[in-house]
């Protein structure tokens, strides 16, 4: 908890705060590639008002992050590190008193090591967390985690917030876009220091052909071995 408090203070220092401002919607698409790199597409929606800069948390410590692209409404982006936490500092071009979508694209090199993280049944375990170290509250957050093509989700091991048994609304949903499976994690009213977390298993979508052959043998063998069941009794 102490680290959260320290980081919160740091976040306040490095950001030009307008206490009335909130991030209306924060959406991030994390696209895991076959080579272990991660492409990150962040879109957030806010009224910049009198803000010059905004620091967004970048929850990829000890990873090499590269800026790929950003909107023309953004003047500049810098990656900074304060007390071990990485931030994306966004410099706005001008002020806006209406809600505007801002978009930026990043790449995290060597995010996931497929060799090291392989477990039983060919599963890989991946966990992801987003902690709101920015100085603004987030009204609605959506994290999409895309698997590389031909990979499927096996199961979800843990989430934050937890899926309550009496809550009909899902914390996460599985879906597919352009032949890539993804999981969507969502939450609302994320205060400063609050976070979302997911840990899941995934694997290559391939089934053993030998297993299918064995099944055929069992079926045929059974029909031969138990043919007396339907033999006409004389």
């Amino acid at each position, binding site marked *: 908890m102490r680290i959260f408090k320290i980081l919160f203070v740091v976040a306040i220092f490095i950001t030009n705060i307008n206490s009335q401002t909130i991030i209306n919607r924060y959406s991030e698409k994390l696209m895991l590639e076959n080579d272990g790199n991660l492409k990150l597409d962040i879109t957030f929606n806010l009224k910049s008002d009198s803000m010059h800069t905004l620091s967004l948390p970048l929850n990829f410590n000890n990873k090499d992050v590269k800026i790929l692209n950003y909107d023309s409404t953004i003047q500049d982006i810098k990656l900074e590190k304060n007390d071990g936490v990485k931030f994306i500092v966004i410099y706005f071009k001008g002020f806006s008193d209406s809600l505007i979508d801002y978009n930026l694209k990043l790449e995290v090199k060597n995010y996931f090591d497929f060799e090291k993280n392989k477990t039983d049944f060919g599963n890989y375990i991946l966990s992801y967390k987003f902690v709101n170290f920015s100085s603004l509250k987030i009204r609605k957050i959506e994290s999409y985690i895309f698997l590389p093509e031909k990979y499927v989700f096996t199961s*979800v091991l843990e989430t934050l917030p937890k899926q309550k048994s009496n809550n009909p609304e899902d914390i996460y949903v*599985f879906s597919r876009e352009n032949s890539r*499976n993804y999981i969507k994690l969502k939450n609302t009213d994320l205060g400063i220091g609050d976070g979302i977390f997911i840990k899941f298993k995934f694997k290559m979508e391939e089934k053993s052909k030998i297993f*299918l052959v064995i099944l055929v043998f069992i079926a045929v063998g059974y029909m031969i071995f138990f043919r007396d*069941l339907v033999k006409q009794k004389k």
Partner: protein
Amino acid sequence: MEQVNTIAINPKQKIDDLLDLDKHKLSVIPEKKSTPLERWMKYLGLPVGILVFSLIYFMPTPEGLTASGQSIIACFSFALVLWISESLPTHVTSLLLMIMLVFLDGWEMSNVLGVLGYDVIWLNVMAFILSSLLVKTQIAKRIALNLIVKFGHKSMPMLLAFVILQLSLAPLIPATAARTVITLPIMLIVAAIYGSTNEDPNGFGKNLLLQNLMGINIFSSGFLTGSTANIIAVSFIMSMADTKVYYTDWMFANLPVVIILMLIMWFLGPKLLIRMKPEEKVPVIEGGIDSLKNQLKKMGKMTKLEKKGALIFGIVVLLWITDRFHTMIFGFEIDPVMAAIVGGVITLLPKVGVLKWNEADIPWHLMLFSAGAYAGGLALNDSGAAKWVIERVFSLIHFDKNLNFWYIYIIVVGIMLFSHLVFTSKTMRTIILIPFIITLAKELGLNPLWLALPAAFTIDWVVGLPISAKPNVILFTTGQYSVLDNIKYGLFVSFIGLLLLIIAGMTWFRFLGITP
């Protein structure tokens, strides 16, 4: 009065032989003769099961489903084919299912093995200890003889007596499993008097057990307090649809429907589904009904052992009936399973109890069946596969505002009703489906009550499979009927029920203001 001895097909049996349940132990697997159709089903069951499994398992993983979910659906479908066809003994199929769930990355081993510790399995064990208590002390025999002497000259009044019995127990004891445990030994003895044992079950025994299964589950839906899931459904309707539903609203609307449904099943079941041979329609006792009267007379007043047994069983029943006052009396609520364990402990206590462990007839092979089957069902719930199946079904139907209300009503109530085939938990089914139905109604510009309340009326109609609910699991362990018999009865009652809900929706519910 028709005398039993006019039937000459079955040799008459001595009453002591029939009522001596030590000779028809449930823990012993009897050898059963198969008909040619059953032999063909056994022969083709495994290959068909493998085919079904392969089609599901090897297909590309559908959108929105996990690899685990796909494995679980494939394994469960395979097991379902095997349970129906009985290619392998049902308990072996269950064990096979447990292995497959683990080996095919469907469900964690600790989860699969943990099912043997679930409340339904404990309740099963305790149910058979309490049943053995009622059998050994002769209480069950006395109640059964009284029932038969009063109603049981013929099969139909006998079956009707059980329908009435279950209807009267439903508002008193909300826990369906408890009702099953109370009536199970009586069912077994009555079935035995009609010549149906687990070694050689007949049409009467099948009808009796299955009608009780239907009655225990379906009568729960006649009352708002019949199950926790009913209360959850109403709280969703109240919070999401802003409509109050009172106890009497529920009862006036649905109780007549379920009573008519059970009467239809009572009448049609033995005539259409499982026909009874003439010799199965009367008690197969040497000397006929007079012999049973003599037997009852011979039993005389209650013995000390009977009184002791009645007292122990009475304590358990009292705990079941008074569940809503437990917190007031004890400071906490005693679960029906714990109440049964209390009864089991007293029953087995040396000198105080009435039963030695060796006298308790517990069919362990069927406990294994229950555990495996439950593991399959729970894995479907836990992985989200059951929910995915239902969502697929809903997505196949393109609902829009121009659709006729009654078309939407039939589809929604039908899906809610038949969804019990993929869910083992009524609560989970309610939490997933009722809010979904309320939202759907709102999107279509309909009053949510019109769809959600009739759908909620079917929450307790969990009759299709031996694992659909706790009473089903307990009753299946008597060995009096097959998985196929259960499915046949269950699906038939579901279709008739749906038809009744449609008719009620257009008439009775409309009169009560539930439907437009």
